[in-house]
């Protein structure tokens, strides 16, 4: 098999590329700077006797046309690339995430690629009420404008990938929850949506019974590779988290006291902040400003949602290979499982 990979140098992408090479696939990898990625790529190719080769293609997602010819002869595209930075104009997110997805799918279909795996996110959904269950068919956030450019661009890109899936193009969408692992560039561990540390203890705006929609990076990589290799999945969408019923208290109990982690977690209910937030929000509207995004996001974090993953387990044939304890240990400097 020959795979074309975007986002292959990223947190999740590195693992996907390694698995592909171990399977014996040849990987064509889009990179911004081949010089920086060369040594790592060579190391992958030498992973074993059966190992496939890694080829680097210089380019960026903002200009798909410039590298589209590289898709010829590829069997699968793994599209994990997106603009992940928290800064920059919307136009950059539009070009590098949304338009890039549209053009890349077009180019893959044009080149006759048999499978296109679009890696999306679980953060795209509308959480209409507390306790709602989210499935693959749940609606996108109703106010993406209040979610920040990254999330909005992921919503738009998901919508574009879903259009392709729904009209019969060979697209498979994988939507991992919050991915964690020791080498995550900013957040090795999920520590709640809003948290503050006070003398080694963490205050999280949440409730102990709330669920933690998280997936360990190695498990997420398994799901992505399955989406690209298992036959008959064209047009399917899979939400992927390790445990649909993992509560935040069970998760934080596991994390508490690990190296570099808070010794204990204390929960502050969102309701505590609601009046102050509502007041500021009201002021924003009164002054004819846009609604206050922070208010929207805080209200959102006060709503619990359960993410079902039955399709991932039944149709994708995915199970989290690494359990919670091992994953937390590995993410906090312990031995990799």
């Amino acid at each position, binding site marked *: 098999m020959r795979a074309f990979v975007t986002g292959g140098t990223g947190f999740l992408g590195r693992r996907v590329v390694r698995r592909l090479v171990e399977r014996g696939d040849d990987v064509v990898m889009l990179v911004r700077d081949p010089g920086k990625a060369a040594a790592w790529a060579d190391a992958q190719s030498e992973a074993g006797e059966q190992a496939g080769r890694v080829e680097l293609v210089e380019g960026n997602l903002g200009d798909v046309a410039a590298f589209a010819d590289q898709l010829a002869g590829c069997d699968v595209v793994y599209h994990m690339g997106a603009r992940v930075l928290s800064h920059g104009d919307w136009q950059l997110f539009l070009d590098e995430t949304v338009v890039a997805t549209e053009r890349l799918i077009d180019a893959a279909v044009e080149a006759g690629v048999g499978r296109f795996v679009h890696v999306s996110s679980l953060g795209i959904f509308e959480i209409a009420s507390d306790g709602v269950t989210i499935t693959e068919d749940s*609606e996108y956030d*109703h106010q993406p404008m209040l979610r920040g450019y990254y999330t909005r661009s992921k919503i*738009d890109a998901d*919508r574009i990938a879903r259009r392709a899936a*729904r009209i019969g193009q060979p697209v498979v969408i994988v939507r991992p929850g919050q991915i964690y692992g020791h080498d995550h560039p900013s957040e090795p561990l999920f520590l709640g949506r809003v948290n503050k540390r006070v003398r080694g203890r963490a205050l999280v705006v949440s409730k102990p019974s709330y669920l933690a929609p998280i997936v360990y990076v190695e498990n997420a990589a398994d799901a992505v590779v399955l989406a690209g290799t298992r036959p008959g999945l064209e047009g399917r969408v899979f939400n992927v988290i390790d445990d649909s019923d993992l509560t935040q208290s069970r998760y934080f109990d596991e994390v508490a006291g690990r190296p570099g982690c808070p010794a204990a977690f204390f929960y502050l209910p969102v309701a505590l902040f609601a009046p102050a937030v509502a007041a500021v929000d009201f002021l924003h509207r009164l002054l004819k400003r846009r609604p206050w995004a922070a208010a929207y996001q805080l209200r959102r974090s006060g709503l619990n949602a359960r993410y079902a993953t039955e399709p991932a387990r039944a149709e994708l044939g995915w199970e989290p290979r690494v359990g919670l304890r091992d994953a937390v240990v590995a993410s906090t400097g312990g031995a990799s499982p």
Partner: protein
Amino acid sequence: MTDSSLKVGVVGTGIIAETHVPYIRKAGGRVVGLADISLARANELADRHAIQNVYRSVGELIEGEAPDVIHVLTPPHTHAAVAIEALERGIHVLVEKPMAVDPADAEAMIAAAAASGAMLTVDHNRLFDPPMLRAHELVASGALGEIVGVESYQAGLAADRPWLASMPGGSLGDLIPHPLYLQLAFLGPVLDLEARAFGAAGDGRTDELRVLMQGERTSGVLTISTGAKPWLNTLKIYGTRMTVEVNCNNMTIVTRRDYDVPKIIAKPLPNLDEAWQLVSQTVASTVNFLRGTVRYYPGMGTLIDRFYTAIRGGTEPPVGIEQGADVVRVTARIWESLGGRPLAAARDGESGAQSGRESQAAADGGDAAGSNDDDAVVAVEA
């Protein structure tokens, strides 16, 4: 939203789609998907209105969502292709005005609707604005006596749309449908017409267009002006007992009649009556607008609501296919009467070069699920 809600698809996500979406929902429709040759533009609208699916063509939209109804909001010259594709699949269609540019396209749409049994209606929205509905009530009640003449007047400048160049008459052509359909509702079939184009500059460009029409029921005059300010938008109906003037910008209706009173007050009374009508209606519509019970393009809301009711109940659509086609046919006769040459509006030169280029780009997109539609003039209803 219930299971019985109609599944509605919107094709063309330009400016007017912003207005359709809230009215679709208000009428009990569920917007299941958008289609536009530009997925990026469709995504913008989807983000603003919490719509889940976007597609690149009407065919994709039908395949992906199997809608019950499709609103065709693409440039006028693409209406027929999009509408026929939907009608052939048994999907009801609401098409923006004008129904088509070429009368042959209108005939093809009629044939497609007849063959499929699906309903087709045209967004002649101003027919359903509250004051216009009131005018029709007055006429039907006989309050005006016999109708002896109708005048419709539209001043304005078409918004700069890339597809204007594809319409005969350019931006002038874009202004014709509203005043024409408002008038045709009273004229009946047009037996004869004569159009004259006037240009102050004397360079062949037009800033005033007047059309004299003899209908089966009465006669009328239609005026398009690109120069007059403010951009009036009125319909006057002259009867043997009463005259009615509807102002589509301000959403008012003023009736004038003779009073059988002593001469001393026969002069001031009609003035005071007129003033009172304007004051009371202005207060009422301002209050309604502030309360949110009235929005821009209120007629569109009523039309969409009646269309969905017709679909559910199998009754007649709010605007009949022939009514829509008549606008296309009469417009074609207007151009014919002017000698069959394309008409350039006095202001077209300002944006003409750009329009042509964009229009070509849109055509190169290759698909009929085109860019946008827009009301002819900037909305000034308040």
